[in-house]
């Protein structure tokens, strides 16, 4: 696992102290309940806005707003602190009332998606490095199309060399599916770098192999090679997809949560008066 970044330690120390301080402050018997709820509510909303600014930092990379890695550390530490304040603000794990429950559900969903996303980043980045065959995500469709074109060329050449269409017909029935687009997503993303994909391919190639002539078998070897190349691309696709797509849950959920939190604030202010 990646070593701890020492430069982020001060942030975590300050966060820990702040969390303990807030818990002690909240437990003080001298405080009125209303003061506690209002204060923790405003602090929580402010913290949520600050956490949302991390996404703004990405859009403003032309400005000297500090390193994104520092912002990420603050984002993570702020998220942990938000969990503590949320628990103090709500007073329980699951509040009463539809609106409050919707807000709590969104809050938990944002937290969980964030934790899962960060975990995926730590885990998959290392797996990607081990997988090798680095490809830019946007180029993967073109890469697969190029492999598919080579595969189809090999099949046509086999028919040309042997005068048989055995391999061609089998290609259309089974292998074309494999070469059409990324396959065996979860095996490539989570398993042993697409072992299921490899097994599937070898089984299909072996099955058709017994019906081929010598002239066709040379082209079957070429298909095997291209299949392995395609699998390496699939591995990159699956892992990079997960790395890119978890934010599609995290960011919209966070936006919805923030909107609902502001609405909650308005309602509280209106009814408090």
């Amino acid at each position: 696992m990646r070593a701890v970044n020492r430069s982020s330690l001060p942030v975590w120390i300050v966060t820990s102290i702040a969390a303990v301080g807030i818990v002690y402050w909240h437990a003080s018997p001298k405080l009125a309940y209303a003061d506690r709820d209002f204060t923790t509510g405003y602090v929580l909303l402010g913290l949520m806005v600050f956490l949302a600014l991390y996404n703004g930092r990405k859009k403003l990379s032309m400005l000297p707003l500090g390193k994104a890695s520092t912002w990420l550390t603050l984002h993570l530490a702020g998220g942990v602190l938000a969990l503590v304040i949320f628990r103090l603000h709500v007073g329980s794990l699951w509040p009463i009332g539809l609106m409050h429950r919707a807000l709590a559900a969104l809050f938990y969903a944002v937290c969980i998606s964030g934790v899962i996303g960060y975990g995926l980043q730590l885990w998959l980045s290392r797996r990607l490095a081990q997988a090798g065959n680095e490809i830019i995500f946007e180029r993967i469709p073109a890469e697969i199309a190029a492999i598919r074109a080579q595969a189809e060329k090999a099949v046509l050449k086999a028919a040309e060399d042997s005068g048989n269409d055995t391999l061609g017909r089998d290609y259309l029935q089974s292998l074309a599916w494999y070469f059409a687009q990324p396959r065996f997503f979860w095996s490539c993303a989570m398993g042993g770098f697409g072992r299921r994909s490899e097994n599937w391919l070898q089984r299909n190639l072996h099955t058709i192999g017994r019906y081929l002539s010598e002239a066709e078998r040379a082209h079957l070897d070429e298909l095997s090679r291209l299949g392995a190349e395609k699998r390496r691309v699939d591995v990159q696709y699956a892992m990079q997809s997960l790395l890119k797509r978890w934010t599609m849950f995290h960011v919209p959920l966070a936006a919805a949560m923030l909107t609902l939190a502001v609405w909650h604030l308005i309602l509280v202010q209106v009814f408090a008066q």
Partner: protein
Amino acid sequence: MDVATPTMMRPHRWDVPFDSDMTDADVEALMSIPAIANVRADAFPPHIPLRGILRNDARIVSYQPGDIVCREGDYGSSAFLILSGAVRVVLSPSLPRAVLGRQPVHKKGFFGALSQLWTNSRAPEVRDIARYRDIRAQSRGESGTGTHIFLQDVPGVLDHHRTISLPAGQIFGELAALGRVPRSATVFAETETHLLEIRWQGLRELRRFDPGWKRHIDENYRRNALHAVLQANPLFSGLTPEVLKEVADRVKFRTFGSFDWNVSYKEMRDSGAAGDEPIIAAEGLVQDGIYLVRAGFARASVRFGSAQRTLAYLGAGDQFGLDESYESWKTGKPVRRRNSLTGLGYVDVLRVPSDVLEEYVFPHLDVPPPPALTADRPIHDDAFAEWLGDERYFNATQAMLIDLERCVRCDDCVRACASTHGGNPRFVRKGRTFDRWMVANACMHCRDPVCMIGCPTGAIHRHEAVGVVVINDDTCIGCGTCANSCPYDNIRLVEIANPSGDAVVDADGRAIVKATKCDLCVEQLGGPACARACPHDALRRVSASVLVEQDAVTATGTKRL
């Protein structure tokens, strides 16, 4: 052709002359001065005539007494021929920065930087082509008659600094212009002086087609290079001028490899064959002095199995063989070299013979030199260093190193680059990899920027203030010489579009292209946006020395960035 298609004249080499104030009368006057009159004009090819060079690649600049012509440390790309008057070269000590009037690098302001948020075009590679026309129509090149920085206290400089005077007819500045290195000394006008400033493209042609200029430039080049290198080396820096001259006279100057080494390197890499490395000093032979690398790169290695094992990469300023020479002097017996020194690409080497060292240097050494390099680590620990050599990455000053185990492939670095360059990323997040390290295809701002060698207009140049290699989009003619020269494929040619997003073509319908590459965000606030934008600190801009240090990190696997 569609009438709506934006067109412009295809740019050519001399579209933007060095100084558009140069007239035919100026050129004819120059043709009569001895340094030019002796040049055989018929030796130049018809498309690069001598008069064309003088008209387009040179300019006449006037200086008043005390005006600074060039400053030590600046990256200049021109040489000077003294037409009349005299200049004075400040040898040592260097003039303080304040005296030299150095200006801060022009950076965008906060709002200028922010405005990129809405001014960046959605279409790729958009240019205002009307601006190109204006530049051609109004071009004065780099003004040769502008104001100059001048020294306030010339007598004070003469009193406190060692200087030499250069009279009319002398050439200076060719060392930096041809060697792609910073100016080694500050030069100011001693009297009212008129100089012919020749940009390096013109200087290269003069050297190429006229034997007299070639001899003159090379002699100057060697003499000045020698002096500068010896002065910069701690072994010789304490010597008196007389002794230094004596040493310089006895030093041997040798060049190995080709000046445009990148061509043979690319061929070698494409073919997958191992390159030949010229032997400068062979292991096992009796040590005959020390070797100082003046320019280029060399490899110190030791025999291992059936091949050579790399011990270190040497660049400008590094030396080889001091330990054995010292031991030989100390023991009075000949000592054989423990390692070999070979050239990588192009390398300029000075050999200071043992008898010179024994006479002038060793008797005054307070502490013995460090021992020669040894190969006492497992070979696997050096695999990364060997790879760096194979890929020629020791040339880097700002390589983009990505830790693939940290990188989450979010491409925030690419987006940050695009947001600071008109919506167009100036690098590609792919490149050669070793273990978990990738050196991405981003300009490395090389110590020896071979991309500059063939540029016909000087569009690709070193930024005078900060030394990074940048491309002047206004004068780039899209010939692709730089992109073809870059051994690392870090320069891209792009087809430009007008603000409406339509491709710009010439009268024949061919697309107008421009060379683009990383400029290290030289005009942006806060340094390279790519490195700042990485949320996991996976991307760093590092020099070759840091890359070599990374070797230990990779080998042990215990440390992380």
